[in-house]
């Protein structure tokens, strides 16, 4: 029985000492694609930020590959293998696609290695290869999102965390984004993602957690949650 790569135990976290997440426990097994879904303001991004080290837990524990990372800062969790891609596709607008990617492997010193990884990612994301020399702000929304994900992959993370990748994308792009995320996962990267497009997320996830006002209200296999009456009514508008 394999150990989870990420184990969050009874997590309380929030802002300015005020908790917005109450006793959340979840785990991600190596190779899985796990989705956290829920409404605006339910606490999904807060959880992600806490795991990645951008915020600190008020209570509870976060174990990554057996190590307690609850008190670590973001650059430290990055070194351990967690790559967090925040919402809003925050790429460097004035830098080229290649430079954006290069900055994603900040912890890697060898120029040769960096170059190799960039090549690899341009393979996985052919749209980016076509625009390799273009600056970030000239890319379309969907392309920028792909760049953000690709940059997240540059550090060869053990766990890739994606926050609202579908935000602001047109329908055909959302479709492509979900396909890309699935492909990256099937190629071996463990992914934990946060999504407001509940149906799309559960369709590609192995397992999901449904969060409401800071608490987990349901969890299970993706397909299971998709069929749940309550989930369909509460989140998928059915």
């Amino acid at each position: 029985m394999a150990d989870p790569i990420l184990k969050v135990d009874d997590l309380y976290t929030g802002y300015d000492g005020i908790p917005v997440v109450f006793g959340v426990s979840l785990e991600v097994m190596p190779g899985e694609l796990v989705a956290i879904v829920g409404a605006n303001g339910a606490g999904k991004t807060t959880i992600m930020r806490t795991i990645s080290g951008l915020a600190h837990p008020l209570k509870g524990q976060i174990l990554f590959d057996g190590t307690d990372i609850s008190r670590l800062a973001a650059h430290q969790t990055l070194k351990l293998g967690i790559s967090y891609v925040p919402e809003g596709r925050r790429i460097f607008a004035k830098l080229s696609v290649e430079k954006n990617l290069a900055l994603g492997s900040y912890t890697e010193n060898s120029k040769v290695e960096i170059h190799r990884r960039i090549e690899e990612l341009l393979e996985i994301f052919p749209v980016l290869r076509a625009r390799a020399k273009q600056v970030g702000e000239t890319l379309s929304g969907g392309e920028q999102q792909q760049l953000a994900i690709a940059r997240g992959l540059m550090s060869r993370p053990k766990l890739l965390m994606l926050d609202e990748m579908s935000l602001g994308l047109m329908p055909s792009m959302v479709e492509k984004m979900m396909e890309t995320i699935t492909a990256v996962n099937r190629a071996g990267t463990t992914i934990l993602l946060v999504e407001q497009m509940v149906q799309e997320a559960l369709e590609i996830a192995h397992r999901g957690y449904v969060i409401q006002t800071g608490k987990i209200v349901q969890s299970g296999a993706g397909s299971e949650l998709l069929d749940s009456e309550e989930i369909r009514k509460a989140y998928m508008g059915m």
Partner: protein
Amino acid sequence: MRRKALDKKDVIWLGFVALLALLPLAPVVAANSFHMHVVILILLFASMSQAWNIIGGYCGQVSFGHSVFFGIGAYGAGMAVVTYGGAPWPGILIGVLLAAAIAVVISYPCFKLSGHYFAIATFAIVEIFNRSFMVWDWVGGAMGLDYPLVKEGLKNLMWYDTKTGYYYCALILFLLIFSVVRWLEGHRFGYYMRAVREGQETAESLGVNSTAVKLAAMALSAALSALCGAFFAQYNLRVDTPMVMSLDMSMKFVLITILGGSGTLVGPLLGAAVLIPLQEYTRAFWGGLGGGVDLIIFGLLIILMVVKQPAGMIGIIGDMHRRFFKHKGIAKGDSADGSP
């Protein structure tokens, strides 16, 4: 912002003003006219900074050129008395109207400049007026205007025996300008000024003619500044360009307001209550050597403020208030929708 016609804060305010009205009777003040002098200056600079606050704080257009309007008021009064040998009142009226008119004419092109460039342009304006007045004989040139001895009283707006007359004038000026701003806060124009400050384009998308708002605020601010300048001339009994129409003077208005709390009603008073005593008492204590001490201390205060609490002294008071209530377990302003 306040919504009722007269609320708790207004009552406190009126009580405070009543206290101020009784101040000259207090023995410590009556005994030493220097203390009275300091209080008069506090009221004057609070009034002047409040006038600046209208365009600089509430409307967000930082002008370093307000000593021009202050100076026009001072010269208006000064020339009426010195050059034309009459009562200051007609000169004050002309000064106020002229200041408003010049403000509109100058700032119309300047407002086309965004943010910092506008502020820089106002630096230039002060310098232009300063140099021009220095070489203009009609206004007294480099020599300035020295007041002759005339009969004291309200008609001539001058007193010699005691400062009490000046004190009540300053108090009335203070009351006038602060009341105007208080009224603006609750009026549509006040909301429009703040909207322009917070986001000019956004305000425009809601139907606000931002150019008109800025010009009107500037005109009002300039008129009130001129009024303050006129009082200063009458109190100082001397008007000269380096004093009234200089960058030094302009900076005082800006810094007092920022220290106290830009865009707030009480800010200019708090700032003046800190700077003016600092300025006057260090000067009195250390004489020539002390001439710069107040500026050093003030400079340090400004740096501290900008780094720690840009909202000024009002911001510090607000923080203490919040922390006090949070400590008591009353979490004010908690979001109902899980923000941020």
